[in-house]
C-alpha cells in the first residue's frame, strides 16, 4: 500500500473516532494555523499609519501560498460577533523573511470592518483568510518608465509594489486631503531622498481635486509610462477616458476597491439564479412567496421565521427583514430566511 493510501485509511479511521465531528475540529483547538487547516491568520501587530489608517501585520497559516505585489487578500473578521469579509491590498513585500503579511486599512465613514481593524483590532486575534488574488500586478518584463497614479487608500497596492520591485524611473502622483493624511508619507519621502522615486503630492483640501489634464504639467511624459492607477471611481473613470483618448489605454492598469454599492430600497427585481427566473417583487411580499409564485421550488418550513428551514444564499443585492426592518446585504456566505425577508432593491437568490 502506498503511503498516501495508508494515510487516507488512517484519516478515515480517525474520522470514525471523532464522528460526527471531524479530527480537524479537535486539531483547531490547539493548532489553528497548521498545514491542512482552513486558511486563517493571527494578527501579530497593529501599527497606526495616519489618524484613520493602520497596518495590520498577520501571521498566516501554513497553507498560505504567498502573494504578488499589488494583489489583495480577502479577510474574515468577527465584528460584534458577526463574521464580515472584506478585501484589502497586501502592503508587505513578497520576500518578507519572517513569513508575515501586512495589509493597510483606512477607516471609511461607517465602515464596520475598517473601523474595527484600525481602532479596535488586538494582536493575538484569529482572522479568516483567503489566498491572495487580483491582477493589478507588475509585468515580468521590467518597464523602462513607470507612473503610479494614486489617491487616498489607493496607495496601498502600489506601496506593495514600491516595496517589492525597484525601477530605474518611477514617478508617483498621489492625492490626499492634507499632508498628514498621506499614508506611508515618511517612507515615500525617504525613497525620494534616496532618489528612488519622484513624488508629487496633491493636497485636495488646498489644491482641489486632481484634474487629469494637469498630468501634462506634473508628468510631461505620462503617455510613455506604464501606469498603475488606484483610487476613487471618479479618478479612475477620468484616467481611463484620458488614456483611451490618447490611444495608450493598454499602458494603464487600474484597480477598483468597491465595485458595486448596494442601495437598499423598497422592492425590486428578484433573480433566482439557479433557475434563471426573474420577477418583480414589492417590498412587503416574502421572497418565499415571490419564488413560489414564479414557479421556483423553494425550501420552506414554518413560514413565520422560526424554523430556519427556508434559509437560502443571497448572492447579490439587499433584503429587508419584515419583522425588524433590518437590511441584510449580499456577501459571500450570507444566508437569508426567505419566509420573513422581502426585496430591498434588486437581488439575486440562489434557487
Amino acid at each position, binding site marked *: 500500500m502506498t503511503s498516501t493510501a495508508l494515510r487516507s485509511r488512517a484519516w478515515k*479511521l480517525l474520522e*470514525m*473516532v471523532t*464522528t*460526527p*465531528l471531524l479530527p480537524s*475540529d*479537535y486539531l483547531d*483547538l490547539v493548532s489553528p494555523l497548521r498545514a491542512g487547516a482552513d486558511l486563517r491568520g493571527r494578527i501579530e501587530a497593529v501599527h497606526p499609519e495616519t489618524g484613520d489608517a493602520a497596518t495590520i501585520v498577520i501571521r498566516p497559516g501554513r497553507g498560505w501560498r504567498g502573494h504578488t505585489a499589488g494583489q489583495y487578500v480577502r479577510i474574515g473578521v*468577527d465584528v*460584534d*460577533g*458577526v*463574521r*464580515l469579509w472584506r478585501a484589502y491590498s497586501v502592503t508587505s513585500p513578497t520576500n518578507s523573511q519572517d513569513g508575515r503579511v501586512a495589509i493597510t486599512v483606512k477607516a471609511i465613514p461607517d465602515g464596520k470592518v475598517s473601523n474595527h481593524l484600525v481602532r479596535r483590532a488586538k494582536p493575538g486575534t484569529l482572522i479568516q483568510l483567503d489566498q491572495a488574488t487580483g491582477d493589478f500586478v507588475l509585468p515580468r518584463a521590467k518597464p523602462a518608465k513607470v507612473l503610479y497614479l494614486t489617491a487616498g487608500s489607493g496607495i496601498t497596492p502600489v506601496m506593495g509594489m514600491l516595496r517589492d520591485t525597484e525601477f530605474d524611473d518611477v514617478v508617483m502622483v498621489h492625492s490626499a486631503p492634507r499632508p498628514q493624511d498621506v499614508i506611508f508619507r515618511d517612507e515615500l519621502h525617504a525613497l525620494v531622498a534616496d532618489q528612488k522615486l519622484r513624488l508629487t503630492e496633491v493636497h485636495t483640501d488646498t489644491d482641489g481635486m486632481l484634474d487629469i489634464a494637469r498630468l501634462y504639467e506634473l508628468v510631461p511624459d505620462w503617455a510613455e509610462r506604464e501606469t498603475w492607477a488606484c483610487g476613487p471611481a471618479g479618478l479612475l473613470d477620468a484616467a481611463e477616458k484620458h488614456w483611451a483618448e490618447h490611444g495608450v489605454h493598454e499602458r494603464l492598469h487600474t484597480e477598483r476597491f468597491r465595485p458595486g454599492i448596494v442601495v437598499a430600497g423598497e422592492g425590486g427585481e428578484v433573480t433566482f439564479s439557479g433557475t434563471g427566473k426573474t420577477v418583480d417583487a414589492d417590498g412587503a411580499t416574502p421572497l418565499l412567496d415571490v419564488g413560489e409564485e414564479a414557479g421556483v421550488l423553494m425550501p420552506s*418550513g*414554518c413560514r*413565520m*421565521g*422560526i*424554523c*430556519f*428551514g427556508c*434559509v437560502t444564499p443571497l448572492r447579490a443585492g439587499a433584503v429587508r427583514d419584515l*419583522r*425588524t426592518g*433590518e437590511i441584510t446585504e449580499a456577501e459571500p*456566505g*450570507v*444566508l437569508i430566511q426567505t419566509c420573513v425577508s422581502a426585496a430591498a432593491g434588486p437581488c439575486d437568490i440562489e434557487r
Partner: protein
Amino acid sequence: MTAIDPTAHLTAKQIEELGRELDAIRDEVIASRGEKDAAYIRKVISAQRKLELVSRGVLLFSFFPPAWIIGTAGLSVAKIMDNMEIGHNILHGQWDWMRDPKIHSTTWEWDHVSPADQWKHSHNELHHTYTNVIGKDNDLGYGIMRVDEDQRWHPFHLGQPLWNFINACFFEYGIAAYDLELGKNLRKRRRNNPEFRARARAVGRKIRKQVLKDYVIHPLLSGPSFLTTLAATFTANLVRNIWSHSVIMCGHFPEGVQVFERRSIKGETRGQWYLRQMMGSANISGSKAMHFMSGNLSHQIEHHLFPDLPSNRYAEVAVKVRALFEKYELEYVTGPLPKQVFSAWRKVVRLSLPNKKPKVKTPDREQELLAA
C-alpha cells in the same frame, strides 16, 4: 385542554397588545446581540470538546475503577452539553447571525442517532409551529403516549408508563424513529415511498457511525479496558438519554400546561400564536448550572416564544416575560426539576387509563376578532 379556558378573560385587543410587547422584547435582544454572545457559544463548544477528549482519554484506563467513574461522568456531561446547550440551540438557528459556517444550523451535526436535518424538520418546523395542537404536534406524547385528557384512549395506552421508561432509556433512538414518523410510514404502502426509504437509510448510516464509535472503536482503542470502556459509553448514553428525556418532558407535560384543538389555530394571529406558546409550555426553576445543563430548555416558555434567540439570553428575557404573564393574569407554569418530572410522570400514569372526556368550550376568537 381544561374545562375552563385560562385565557378567556383576555380580549382580542389585549392579545394583540401582548404580541406587540413580546415582539419588543425580541427586538431588544436582537439589537444587542454581539461579541459577548459569540464568545459564549465558542467557549461552550471548546469546553465541550476538551471535556469529551479528556474523558475519552481517561476511559482508556477504565479497568481502574476511579478512572471509570471520572471518565463516565465526564463523558455523560460532554454528551449532554453536545445535545442540549450546543446542538439543540445551533440547529434552531440561534447562532446563524454570527455567519460562522462552522457554527451554523445548515452545517451542524450532533452526537445523536437522528440526523440533524431530519430533526430540524420535525422539531423546528412541526413542533414549534404547531406547539401542543392535538393531531398536529407529535411531541404531545411522541405519538406513542397519551398526555392529555382530550387525546383518544386506546388499550395500548395501558402500557404507557413502561413505554415512557423505555423511551427515556433509549431516547435518541425514540427521537430518530419519531423524526422518521416510523409508525405512520411503516403502515400500508408508505414503506416503499422512495423519500421515506432515503431518510431511513440516512438514519441507518448515522446509527452505524454512532454505534461503531461508542461501542466498537473507542473500546478497541482501550485495549485491556475494552469491556469497561464499553460499559462506560453505554452508561454515558443512558445518562444523557434519561436526562434529556426528563428535561423535555418538563417542557410541555406538567400539570397546568394547555393543549389546543386543530380548529382553534385556524386564522391564528401573531398575538394568539404567542399566547398558545405561553400556555403550552412549562419551565424548570433552578440554579445556573441547572439551566446550562438543560440547554436553557428550563426556560422552555421563553424558548417557545423566541426559538431563535441565543440560549444564553433566555434568563434575562424570562424576567420580562414573567412580568407579562402577571400583567395579563396568566399562569406561568414553573417548578424545580423533581417536582416537574414527578408531575409529568403522574400524568403519564394517570392517562394510561381512560377518562371521561371533559366538556370543552373553545372560545371563538375568530368571531371576536371580526367583531373588534
